[in-house]
């Protein structure tokens, strides 16, 4: 199907345009609508990708890949779920693939090159020790638990939405969430306390 491209339509759409209408306009080639859709959802997806442990170096590529996939697949979006749920799903799958590739690389590097996997690199744009702290704890959760915890606690989504995104029953979501929370609290209270104290001391020295 040939997509007719027009750069702009008038009048300028306001911020109140619902997602469904934005999608319809994007399908007709409205670039402004596509920009609005991107502006509305990209910050969420960037935050989501970051919380799932994608490294700072790969983050921009990851978000780009997600939105290129969204653009490619707009015709197939049927509107049965919210647009944000659909985009989160694409992002979760992409981040999962990246995570699996990274783990394969790390394993191969360890086996073939006899080198340990590199430690996670803290994002220099983050200025709060608490964010680094939570990042480290999240990195120790299994990908499935991490995804559910991030979607619930960071993205603030409902359980039914999360169930659609990760493609599992709502009970499974609740179960993963419960276990993820327990593990996070245990790790926070346990040996990771030493790291917290060190960060607070360093912050005190710097101020």
């Amino acid at each position: 199907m040939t997509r007719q491209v027009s750069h702009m339509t008038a009048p300028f759409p306001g911020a109140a345009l619902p997602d469904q209408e934005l999608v319809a306009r994007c399908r007709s080639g409205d670039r402004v609508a596509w920009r609005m859709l991107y502006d509305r959802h990209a910050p969420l997806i960037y935050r989501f990708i970051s919380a799932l442990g994608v490294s700072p170096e790969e983050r921009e590529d990851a978000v780009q890949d997600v939105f290129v996939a969204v653009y490619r697949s707009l015709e197939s979006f049927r509107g049965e779920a919210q647009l944000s749920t659909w985009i989160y799903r694409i992002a979760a799958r992409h981040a999962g693939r990246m995570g699996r590739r990274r783990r394969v690389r790390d394993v191969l590097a360890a086996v073939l090159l006899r080198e340990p996997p590199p430690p996670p690199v803290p994002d220099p744009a983050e200025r709060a020790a608490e964010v680094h702290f939570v990042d480290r704890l999240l990195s120790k959760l299994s990908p499935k638990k991490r995804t559910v915890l991030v979607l619930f606690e960071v993205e603030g989504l409902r359980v039914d939405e999360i169930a659609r995104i990760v493609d599992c029953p709502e009970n499974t979501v609740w179960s993963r969430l419960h276990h993820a929370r327990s593990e996070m609290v245990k790790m926070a209270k346990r040996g990771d306390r030493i790291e917290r104290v060190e960060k607070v001391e360093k912050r005190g020295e710097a101020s």
Partner: protein
Amino acid sequence: MRWLDNPQDEAERWLREGLDLQARRTDELALRRIWTKVSDKAAELDLQARPRPGVARVLYLFAGMAVAGGLALAVAVLWPALRAEELPVPMLAAPSLEIPGPPLVVADPEPLLVGPTTVRTGPREARSVRLKGGTRVDLAAHTTLAVDAGQRPQLQRGRVKLQVPRQEPGETFTVAAGPYVIVVVGTAFEVGVGMGRVAVDVREGVVEVWRDGQMVRLPAGHSWQGPAREAPRARRTASLAAPPPVALPPHPVDRFLQAKDALAAGDTGSALEILEQLSVGTGPTAENSSYEIGRVLRDHRRQPRAALAAWGRYRERFPTGLLRAETDVSRIETFLALGDRRAALVEAEAFLQNHPDSERLPEMARLVARLRGSGISNGSAGQARQAPGQSPEAAAPGRR
């Protein structure tokens, strides 16, 4: 009530605060860079979406699957190198230019780099080089830095830390990164005064801002604003004891998020007020806010002419700013929406001259061809060449 809203101990408090800060995580400059690439890719897909679906796509998919199956392991191992080749993406972290963590392997100690040349670091390698003029450049792993014949560096991939010596008056040091040009005037910080506010942005080192015996200390990568109603008296206290620290005002990123929240709530007035405050001075936050004012005016207040004026002011204040290319594109889009195709053509032609390395170049070239093909002209027989910091209107002969 949310989980851990009543923390039982410090560990739980840290957890809750960390999760809340995660929820406010953002990087506006990264999002703009991503948009540039997404937009261009979308334009490519539109061109590819011309007829011949069906069989061609099926064959492509089948071939792709066969290749993917056979090379899956090799791709997984070679992934970093492959990504590097297909996406020469600038990975400059904003606002700091610091490299996270210590270098793993240090190669040659600071050789002098003379252009034209390119230096690359491997997956677990860090290097330090010097440029003509004395600038020291520390390259992190996975980094590609090019230097042209004019000794101008261009970061093509990865991260670098730069230490720039003081420049001669009128001289500036610049480094290009993707569609952006970072300008350093040889100092470690920037100061701006305007609209009743004083703004300081720190790139390197630590800067102290004193007032009435009190002090705010700003490390690299931080910005600060304060009222300029009373002239700050930069006197130091006689006591050797450290002065009581002044509580830092809200971080500009938080203020920017407040503007976004106001916008989401439909309060464009408050959003504009915050953005106007943030746009004072220089630095990424000021530039981002200046640009965003135009977006709010166009997309939320439906005032395209006011948006054009706002972006015109951005171009005057930041002729080689971080968002200059983005601003130019926004003006072109706005002229098209207003039906002023001649002005759009003038702007688009100027874009081709001013941003030869932009990733939006193919898109703009197609637009120019389409507008010319439809009989639109730029209105002048001999188009004057537009200087990089000049607006197209000023460059066009016969215009004031």
